[in-house]
């Protein structure tokens, strides 16, 4: 069984059910966009995929095997912020993954192997459009450039799975569409399954081959008391709080592949929305 499988996954923090009964199968090479209201558990979902957190119930399988319970080099990640190392220059930030791999003790390469790692990093940097900036520190890059760097850094170890948590949430609209082009190209050119959390629906449909929505099951008005509302009136015992789960699951049709998107392409509408989640 290839790909990523969520098998009846629940996640609770103490009494608070965050995710409820997640059943999901993600095909290899899919580009899954995850949307949902704030606080519904998207980051929690990603953290479990990373191995940073474990499900309270259920199991996560990758290529048929249980997920390693800690982050590792088979899964790359880019966060909204803090993804890159501020004390390393741009090129060092990209090289460092190779250094971790090749030099277990020092975490540093010298001589020939260093040169190889450097060249490799420079190629990645030029792929993300950062050539010429390789000796700067991240703090002197703009937000968009930092996220490009984080991408290059994550790609350096050639992960099978790339996890993105609102990677472009803090960017200006103009810069954002540039980087959309980049991430599509990266996905096209590599053997990569991407799971991206985003707040922006149009971004989800523009990039994803599949868009999954999480929601708390009983819809409560936005900005209300979050959990209190579940404790409804006249039941003798309070109803258990509800977690979020998958409420919609679109395959974006036609499945997008190859060819960078034109800069001003309008947000595609879901042409073939299905409401069944893959495993139901």
């Amino acid at each position, binding site marked *: 069984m290839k790909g990523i499988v969520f098998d009846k996954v629940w996640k609770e923090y103490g009494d608070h059910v965050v995710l409820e009964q997640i059943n999901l199968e993600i095909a290899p090479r899919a580009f899954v966009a995850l949307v949902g209201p704030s606080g519904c558990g998207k980051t929690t979902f990603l953290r479990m995929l990373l191995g940073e957190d474990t499900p309270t119930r259920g199991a996560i399988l990758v290529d048929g095997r249980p997920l390693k319970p800690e982050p590792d080099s088979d899964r790359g*990640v880019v*966060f909204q912020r803090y993804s890159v190392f501020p*004390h390393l220059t741009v090129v060092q930030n990209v090289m460092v993954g190779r250094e*971790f791999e090749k030099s277990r003790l020092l975490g540093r390469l010298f001589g020939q192997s260093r040169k190889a790692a450097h060249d490799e990093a420079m190629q990645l940097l030029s792929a993300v459009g950062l050539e010429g900036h390789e000796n700067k*520190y*991240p*703090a*002197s890059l703009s937000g968009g450039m930092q996220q490009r760097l984080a991408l290059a*850094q994550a790609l350096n170890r050639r992960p099978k799975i790339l996890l993105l948590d609102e990677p472009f949430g803090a960017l200006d609209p103009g810069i954002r569409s540039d980087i959309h082009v980049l991430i599509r190209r990266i996905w096209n050119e590599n053997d990569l399954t991407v799971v991206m959390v985003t707040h922006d629906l149009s971004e989800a449909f523009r990039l994803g081959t599949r868009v999954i929505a999480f929601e708390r099951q009983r819809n409560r008005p936005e900005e209300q008391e979050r959990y209190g509302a579940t404790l409804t009136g006249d039941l003798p015992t309070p109803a258990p709080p509800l977690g979020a789960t998958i409420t919609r699951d679109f395959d974006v049709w036609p499945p997008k592949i190859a060819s960078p998107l034109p800069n001003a392409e309008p947000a595609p509408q879901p042409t073939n929305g299905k409401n069944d989640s893959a495993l139901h």
Partner: protein
Amino acid sequence: MRAINIKPNRGWHVLLACIPFLLVLVAYAIGSSLRLAENPNDKLLPGFGAIAEAVKQYAFTEDARTGLYLMWSDTVASLARLLSALAISAVIALFFGIFIGMLPLARSTFGPFFAVASMVPPLALLPILFIVMGLGEASKIALIVIGTALKLIRDIALRVQEIPREQIIKAQTLGASTWQIATRVITPQVLPRMLDALRLEIGPAWLFLIAAEAIAADSGLGYRIFLVRRYLSMDVIIPYVIWITILAFVMDMALRWVQGRAFPWFAGARAS
């Protein structure tokens, strides 16, 4: 205009900054001349002339017996103790701070202990320190180390925990081991922050140095102050205190300078 919106320009700033120093000088001059009028031999608040005389004697005249310029040899002795103690303190604190800040197991094990230990007044346990370290330089340095390292450890552990979790995860997704995370991700980021913490410990370090030199020594700034205190030679004590203040201030500036020089990325990272 509201007082909160009035900003002095550069020239005024310098002028204003001088005022309190001048006031202290004037207050001292008045107090001193009042006391000297009553008893010309008064030693508590000597006149500026007497202080200058003492400085001349201690800083610019060879000591008859030892052939040394006392103030300089005292300074060298004290600085050697202070700087080696701070260096040791920094190394220990860096090790334990990263260890505790980074590993949950180490945090559980040593966190509460160091929290309690940092509350122990070190001066009261001097006798035990003497037995362990002897009465020589070692115990003086040890006193400063104990007085500063515990605070530093806790501070560094906190700073380590402030490093965004995202970076630790990212490092792991790049294949880093715990050791590699410690050496290549955490240590270099904590070093400049340690300099900040170290700057805060300069004051306490001087305090402990003076205390240690007061207990057993044959040279050093604190030694001299406590020795001449026996006959209330404020004409020596006052310039020594001013000199210590200057040294502490210069050390503070030096650490800031080093921070800027050695960690060019830090200013930018801190601002963001």
